[in-house]
């Protein structure tokens, strides 16, 4: 592991400032790029095209970009928290079945005819239940590879996907369409303010604990120093990672591997300090998903690709490479 300079206020601010700059650049790119040639500066032109550019840039591209930033941030945050909790860099809401659990919860609620608030709560419940189950089943896995943990998660993820299929085949015609579209998810038309608010709230909630999280991620012995704190902290992590996953899934459907790539890349670049990784993951996740969304919009335009396809195409090779690295380090 490379050595990184200890975290100073200056390094924290510099890193965050550069990530913010990257976010701003990507946001600009996202507002400028699309299947049509309209650009933000046409907003200030006179003439009939200004109205059109306004609709394209402000009503279509902007909300979608903000949703991508918020959802990507939530997914990367959920990934980081699960990696701290399970002390395994391969932990990620999609791989461990948390996203699947959220889906099953939400689909059950939809099948019972619940409204949108109950659907979100059920998604949160499903995500929390899956995380707890993974931890309960694999907690005694002390092997250095923690293979059991990953296998448990992957088994639960397939179980959740089978349950989702079962719920879909049980659904009556009237509800089926809504459920399928819910499952597919889509950043276009996603409701970004709720996702952005959730991301901010979770960051504010977690920030005061970041020193303790540092201890926790350094291993069992170090975590013992936290004493009775440990349990409370674990619950906080369960709750926050489940909430982040649930909001992400209800906003934009199942999107994999953002929670894996982003925290991992940031660890390589910035080191292990959670105080830095916490806000950096939120921003970095947003950047990665926004970049993937720009791709999904323009690669085959006017045909739109699901953004989950793009993140998985990029994420699975990274996941496999990581798995190889861990195998080689025996």
């Amino acid at each position: 592991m490379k050595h990184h300079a200890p975290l100073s206020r200056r390094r924290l601010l510099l890193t965050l400032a550069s990530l913010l700059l990257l976010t701003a650049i990507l946001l600009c790119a996202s507002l400028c790029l699309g299947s049509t040639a309209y650009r933000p500066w046409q907003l200030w032109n006179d003439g009939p095209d200004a109205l059109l550019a306004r609709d394209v840039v402000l009503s279509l591209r902007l909300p979608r970009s903000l949703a991508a930033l918020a959802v990507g941030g939530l997914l990367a945050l959920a990934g980081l928290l699960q990696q701290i909790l399970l002390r395994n860099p391969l932990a990620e809401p999609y791989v461990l079945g948390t996203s699947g659990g959220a889906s099953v919860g939400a689909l059950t609620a939809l099948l019972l005819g619940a409204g949108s608030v109950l659907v979100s709560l059920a998604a949160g419940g499903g995500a929390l239940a899956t995380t707890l189950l993974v931890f309960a089943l694999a907690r005694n896995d002390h092997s250095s590879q923690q293979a059991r943990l990953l296998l448990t998660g992957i088994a639960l993820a397939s179980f959740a996907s089978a349950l989702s299929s079962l719920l879909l085949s049980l659904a009556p015609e009237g509800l089926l369409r809504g459920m399928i579209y819910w499952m597919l998810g889509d950043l276009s038309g996603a409701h970004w303010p709720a996702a952005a608010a959730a991301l901010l709230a979770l960051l504010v909630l977690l920030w005061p604990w970041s020193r303790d999280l540092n201890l926790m991620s350094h291993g069992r012995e170090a975590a013992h120093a936290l004493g009775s704190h440990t349990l409370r902290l674990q619950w906080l992590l369960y709750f926050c990672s489940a909430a982040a996953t649930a909001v992400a899934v209800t906003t934009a459907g199942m999107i994999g591997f953002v929670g894996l790539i982003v925290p991992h890349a940031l660890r390589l670049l910035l080191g292990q300090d959670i105080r830095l990784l916490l806000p950096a993951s939120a921003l970095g996740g947003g950047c990665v998903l926004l970049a993937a969304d720009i791709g999904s919009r323009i690669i085959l335009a006017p045909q739109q690709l699901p953004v989950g396809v793009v993140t998985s195409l990029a994420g699975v090779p990274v996941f496999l490479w990581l798995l190889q690295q861990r195998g080689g380090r025996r």
Partner: protein
Amino acid sequence: MLRGLLASLLLAGACADVAVKDDQGRTVSLKQPAQRIISLAPHLTEHLYAIGAGSRIVGATNYSDYPAAAKALPRVGGYNSFDLEKIRALKPDLIVAWPSGNPARQLEQIESLGIPVFYDEAQKLVQVPTVMERLGVLSGQEAGGKAAAAEFRSRLAKLEARYAGKKPVRMFYQVWDRPLMTINREQIISDVMHLCGAENVFANLPSLVPTVDEEAVITANPALIATSGEASNKVNWLDRWRRWPRLAATARQQLYILPPDLLSRMGPRLVDGAEALCQVVEQARQ
């Protein structure tokens, strides 16, 4: 005085709103007949051409391939994921949508841009000509809409007169091969079967497009099995039934491939599909 009155009447006539109710019960009203229409489903594109409004289409989803002129229309993506930006840039004054196939969220976004949307949710054969009439009003082709609808209705009436009360034929309609899929009584093809005096052996299944197994088909023992598509692609689909010589449809060689897209699109050519289906039902009846 008189001239002023006449002028204002004419003006009022020219500016009159055109308005119809769509299948979601909402009133779609336009300041003037639509000049720039985008169609979000292949059958809606066919409808527009059939009523004489083809020249007003400025964009359509993929697979809008009939009539031949539709192949040259600018594309706005697939029916289940279209490019909103492209749609907005084409400056449509009317969008004709198919909520059974189009994603609800994207339709909401189109509405939030202030573009009028007409929803076609025809579930029954008799509703199809009303869509043509209403599209005729919205596109200023009222006469064309009425004529196309009248022709559709009279051809249906002929089929009904000819086949109503004839001996029912038990039939299996094969939507897909692997997995083996069919339709239940709610689906519009069941409506066509009913018209021809055929009886869907899987009418009572709960889901609209159920997956069934070979065993269930053999147990149901239909006297006629039909599917739609290019004959060269679909011949394998029917071959699987030839392995069962005691199946009534196989024994009497009543396995048919109907022309593609006629029955699967709820457009003007559905009546062609009905005629084709009635013909094979009649052959199976002999």
